[in-house]
């Protein structure tokens, strides 16, 4: 073991962290009186504190690694914590050889889902034995195939839950399509679990709620009958496990080899949901309840995924009801990231809204963030890039970047800037005008989400090429629904084929190899079917996809980082279909072609899924910004990152009320709350969420924050319903901000 002073000195060395922690950070590292409520503002070094606190437990207090659980929100974040832990531990071990046996691999570290799964497996919890865990795509496919709700067409029911149905309007005359019903059902079912809903209460509410409960119960039975488990129920199983005998052994140890769980550390606690809150509290049931939660309620962005900032805001109440103990609050308010003017700006921003001052919205008693960065200098670190007309803004952004930031060597590489937008899609109302301006001025951009996934040229061409190969007669076009109308997939597939055709006809794009591949495949496939003695012809769709990808233009497109990212995603989606054992090609009865039922299922299940549900972007991806490119990102993508120069545009747009906000209110009566909570209207919730979103955007900037907006866009008087961008008081903003 090592003493505390040496511990801090060691980690402050250049080979480790390179600087010492401040007094508040140290207090957070050293606190040992039970629940710790760590409110960590942007750039306050919260990961450093979490990592140091973990190491202090290991190296100063001699806590066994197996007694520590450390969770965070995404896999890359967990990896990042692990990397820092290892790196610092090596420095400590080099200093004191008695620490040589501290083995980090024994710490339970990861996302909560991965920990739940590992522990349930390790303890061979009977209800989780031989169960197959469904990922997101598989949960959708499973629901499509086995959940009765997917066949339920009652229009009133779906109108009632319209908010959960993707791209469907409440006033529609027909019930949503099967895939849209499935997607909505998955949202509702997951909320039932995540929000700890009392099913009896919901049933008693009658009407559509009672119907929902019945469908949910059928879904659970289907999961059990099929030995499947989705991610939401993985957590539910885990919570049950903690009360079982195995769970007790896990929590309290067995007095022999098995050590008790003594410390629970949770990162990004603002993105926790109620069932996770219960899990964390259950994990720390042992006196003195050593649970450390770290996060920033002002940076909560994931309500749409079921997260609920109330868990962070009400952590004191949760501890009081569960442990009869008040957590010790520490606020890490020193910001080491941004120029002081940027800090002042986002401080003013978040506190200028009466909506944010209402009880239960922000953690109580929070102070302003204090600037402490080494970035200094008397220059307008917050700048307002403005033009009278919105259409002139993109050109202004180009000029600023090209003629100032680059030309004057303010930055050494384009990747030191970022343009943050609500939506990065290449359409007129979104990033379109910016993308055009950058292209016209030869500024290379990195924008993997410029197209909605299914609209991008490479994805459409890839799928079209596959259709041309496995269904050369275009049987997809012949399917009709009960009313005699073409099935929903027909038009989109035709569009893909048109996209492919126009690429093939474009003389500037090399496509000869692809054309040859399609033609030859059309000749060979019937022969393979005829030669095969079995129904399955020993070929799956992903194999064909890779052969298509090897042909130009795909092989060229893959050199473009954004296209590459999307093509890689196509392969992962096919992998989901593959996991249901549905993608192996079969021949038809006469043995001369592909089985029509195989094709039908491919269109009906998989292609419809792609078309109708709108494939989400991966939120958890590890963002790698390539050098030499200007990144264009959504604010969600930028969460956790920092850039020397941040440009935020599309200011003045209002957020939309979605399922998450409506369910927050609608489910209030059914939630088995640990403590009473304020229920707020969806309209207010969406304002809060938008304010938090912009707060995250503004606090990414280190040296310069550039707000890109017309005078109208910052004028709150004109945008009463919108969330004002620089705060409620635009006059103050105009007076104090340098405009260029």
């Amino acid at each position, binding site marked *: 073991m090592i003493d505390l002073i040496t511990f801090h000195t060691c980690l402050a060395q250049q080979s480790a962290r390179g600087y010492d922690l401040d007094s508040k950070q140290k207090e957070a590292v050293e606190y040992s009186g039970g629940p710790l409520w760590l409110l960590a503002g942007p750039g306050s070094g919260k990961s450093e504190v979490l990592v140091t606190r973990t190491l202090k437990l290991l190296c100063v207090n001699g806590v066994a690694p197996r007694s520590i659980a450390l969770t965070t929100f995404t896999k890359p974040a967990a990896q990042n914590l692990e990397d820092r832990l*290892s790196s610092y531990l*090596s420095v400590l071990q080099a200093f004191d050889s008695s620490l040589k046996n501290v083995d980090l*691999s024994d710490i339970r570290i990861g996302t909560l889902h991965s920990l739940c799964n590992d522990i349930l*497996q390790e303890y061979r919890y009977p209800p989780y034995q031989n169960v197959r865990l469904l990922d997101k795509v598989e949960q959708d496919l499973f629901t499509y195939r086995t959940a009765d709700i997917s066949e339920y067409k009652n229009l009133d029911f779906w109108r009632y839950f319209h908010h959960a149905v993707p791209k469907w309007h409440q006033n529609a005359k027909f019930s949503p399509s099967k895939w849209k019903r499935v997607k909505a059902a998955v949202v509702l079912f997951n909320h039932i679990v995540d929000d700890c809903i009392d099913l009896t209460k919901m049933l008693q509410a009658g009407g559509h709620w009672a119907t929902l409960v019945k469908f949910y119960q059928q879904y659970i039975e289907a999961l059990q009958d099929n030995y499947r488990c989705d991610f939401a129920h993985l957590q539910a199983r885990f919570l049950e496990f903690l009360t079982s005998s195995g769970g007790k052994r896990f929590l309290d140890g067995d007095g022999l080899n098995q050590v008790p769980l003594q410390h629970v550390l949770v990162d990004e606690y603002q993105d926790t949901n109620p069932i996770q809150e219960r899990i964390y509290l259950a994990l720390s049931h042992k006196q003195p309840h050593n649970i450390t939660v770290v996060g920033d309620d002002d940076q909560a962005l994931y309500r749409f995924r079921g997260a609920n900032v109330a868990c962070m805001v009400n952590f004191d109440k949760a501890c009081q009801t569960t442990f009869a103990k008040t957590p010790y609050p520490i606020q890490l308010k020193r910001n080491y990231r941004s120029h002081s003017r940027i800090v002042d700006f986002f401080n003013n921003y978040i506190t200028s809204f009466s909506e944010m001052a209402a009880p239960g919205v922000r953690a109580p008693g929070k102070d302003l963030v204090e600037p402490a960065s080494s970035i200094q200098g008397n220059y307008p670190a917050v700048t307002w890039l403005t033009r009278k007309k919105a259409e002139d803004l993109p050109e202004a952004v180009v000029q600023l970047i090209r003629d100032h930031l680059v030309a004057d060597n303010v930055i050494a590489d384009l990747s030191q800037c970022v343009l943050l937008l609500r939506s990065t899609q290449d359409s007129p109302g979104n990033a379109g005008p910016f993308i055009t301006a950058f292209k016209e001025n030869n500024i290379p951009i990195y924008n993997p989400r410029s197209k909605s996934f299914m609209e991008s040229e490479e994805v459409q061409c890839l799928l079209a090429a596959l259709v041309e190969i496995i269904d050369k007669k275009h049987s997809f076009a012949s399917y009709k629904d009960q009313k005699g109308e073409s099935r929903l997939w027909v038009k989109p597939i035709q569009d893909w084929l048109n996209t492919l055709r126009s690429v093939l006809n474009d003389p500037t794009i090399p496509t000869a190899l692809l054309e040859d*591949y399609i033609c030859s495949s059309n000749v060979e*496939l019937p022969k393979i079917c005829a030669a095969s003695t079995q129904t399955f012809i020993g070929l799956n769709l992903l194999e064909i996809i890779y*052969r298509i990808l090897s042909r130009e233009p795909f092989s060229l497109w893959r*050199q473009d980082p954004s296209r590459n990212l999307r093509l890689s995603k196509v392969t992962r989606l096919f992998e989901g279909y593959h996991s249901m054992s549905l993608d192996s090609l079969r021949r038809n009865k006469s043995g001369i072609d592909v089985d029509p039922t195989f094709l039908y299922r491919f269109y009906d299940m998989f292609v419809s899924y792609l078309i109708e549900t709108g494939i989400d972007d991966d939120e958890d991806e590890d963002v790698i910004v390539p050098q030499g490119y200007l990144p264009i990102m959504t604010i969600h993508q930028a969460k956790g990152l920092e850039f020397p120069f941040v440009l935020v545009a599309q200011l003045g747009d209002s957020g939309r009320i979605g399922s998450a906000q409506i369910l927050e209110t609608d489910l209030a009566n059914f939630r088995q709350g640990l403590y009473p909570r304020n229920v707020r209207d969806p309209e207010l919730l969406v304002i809060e969420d938008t304010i938090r979103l912009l707060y995250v955007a503004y606090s990414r900037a280190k040296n310069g924050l550039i707000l890109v907006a017309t005078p109208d866009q910052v004028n709150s008087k004109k945008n009463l319903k919108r969330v004002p961008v620089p705060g409620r008081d635009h006059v103050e903003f105009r007076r104090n901000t340098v405009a*260029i």
Partner: protein
Amino acid sequence: MKKPFSGISVPLPTTPPVKRRYSITQDIVPFRRCARQYGTFNVHKYAPAYQTQTYFGTTLHQVLDRCHSHFHGIIDPATKGLLPDNGKILGDQDILDYFDELRIAEKLSTAPPTPPSDIVKYFVEVENGLKSRGIRAIKSDNRLQVVRILQYFNALEGPVLYPRVIDTEHRLQADRTNHILHGVVDLLVDPTTSAGVPEDYEMWDYKGSTRVGLNPKDLENYEFQMRVYAKLYELKHGVLPRRAILYFLNELDGPTCPSKQPVNALIEVSILPTEIDNAVIEFAKTVMQIEQARVTGNWQSAIPGDISEKDCAICDLRWDCNTPNGGKGVKLRYP
């Protein structure tokens, strides 16, 4: 235009904000085998159509780990000192029948049948576990082979080896200037009968392949891996291990269980200090190359001859790769 940031100049950071951790078997060796394949599947996360290669090895490792736990009574104290299945071997048909029953049960949504042996049970558990991490199950013909090899290993090596195992999945790592070096040694074995000390221990590493026909470059990579492990071992324990051993599990395969250890199954890697130093330098060089490729996006295919034809034969990228077939590339298949 006004120039608000005149006079400021922000340099590009020279090192990544956090040191990346590089695993010898998951990053360095695959990158050295073929950078293009590594970039595509490990960095850009394409989903391979055939995952045989990776998951074959992972499954073998994880089941063997459970066999050790079984013997040491870690899973269930009642099995302490006992060989899984008491070394008994199921015939191929019995195993296939079970997989069939399992498949049918899954299809009919009935309870999965009781596994016919410990090894099959562990195998199915491991498969499920991999699945929950988004790693898909391997193809059915390989499943049989994996179980067969596991049974043979268990019966042939288990009785002598298991009691000597000091640690499994022994983790080692070290902090370098701009990265962290990380490795997991499959087994630490104490060949002495007395309670040993680290300088007596042997490091064992399982390989899910045969020794015969192994590409020299692959062998070179494996030796390199063991030498880096030896360095990490030395950093942790202050001494070098006594021996570094590679065990080629697929040498056991065949219609029946071998009656003695196949001569090609086990090789000892020499771990002289100069060899170790060279390996560590190589490691750092490879890390630099990976970091560079991440920035430039340029992931090169292996040089013909440097990679085994077998690896290329199951690579999804072979259709536009000039490396396989001694540099001639493969003929495209239709469709």
